[in-house]
């Protein structure tokens, strides 16, 4: 059975995942729009999922892919609840700029 990782190499996937994750971290720190922050979190989750699938193929073990399946479910639930919170915040404050959300500041 011809395996893809013999030709590409697992290191390339590790590097791709690292770069994708760093872009996600950068987005969380750089942007003020809360929706873009959510999108950055999705990018980070996807980077980790990609590495999971890469190692699942590497070890030829389907359990890694089952784990990715669960992680996708949790991501979907997280996005649904998070966007509902954002809608509620927008209704109360009038913007989703995260620098306006400082009611808990001491």
């Amino acid at each position, binding site marked *: *059975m011809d395996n893809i990782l013999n030709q*590409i190499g697992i290191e390339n996937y590790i590097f*791709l995942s690292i770069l994708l994750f*760093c872009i996600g971290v950068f987005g969380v720190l750089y942007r003020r729009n809360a*929706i873009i922050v959510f999108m950055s979190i999705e990018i980070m989750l996807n980077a980790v999922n990609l590495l999971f*699938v890469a190692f699942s193929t590497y070890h030829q073990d389907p359990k890694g892919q089952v784990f990715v399946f669960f992680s996708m479910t949790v991501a*979907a639930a997280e996005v649904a609840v998070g966007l509902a919170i954002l809608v509620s915040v927008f209704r109360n404050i009038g913007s989703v700029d995260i620098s306006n959300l400082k009611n808990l500041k001491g």
Partner: protein
Amino acid sequence: MAPVLIIFYVLAAITLASAFLTIYSRNPIHSAIYLVICMVSIMGHYLLFNAQFLALVQLIVYAGAIMVLFLFTIMLMNLNKEDEVHKPRITRLGAITVLVLLSTVLLLLFRHSKPFFGDYAPIEGDFQSIKKLGTVLLDNKDGFMVPFEFTSVLLLVAMIGAVLLSKKEKQTK
């Protein structure tokens, strides 16, 4: 160069560029569209691994459901204009420094991460077709039946929570 390697490099370039443009573009709608491109290219990576089930789920869940949710929220809040004020310069500099330092450290850390047991021998037979994954997921003996059921509870709770949170509160006074 092997054709698979060329496909990998093209896909990786698309993934990284669209992920960066997601963060960089000012208009949230453009960000959502770039995020769709990013998700679809990650689906291409899954297809390259021959992980068919996850490729389909990635397309349906991420590029379909989550993106519709994002676009719906953006349009609900009427955010499709570019009126975002930038953060103060020191914060932006800090973010760029974090990006550079984190990626440098991680890349150097994993540069020599050669697998411990050398080359592995490919196993004959499939290990990631939809049939096989379903067996692993829902096997009676050592499957993931209980987490699977709890996942449905999690989705139910998330649905109820989302409805409750975004419901308009009645004025009692």
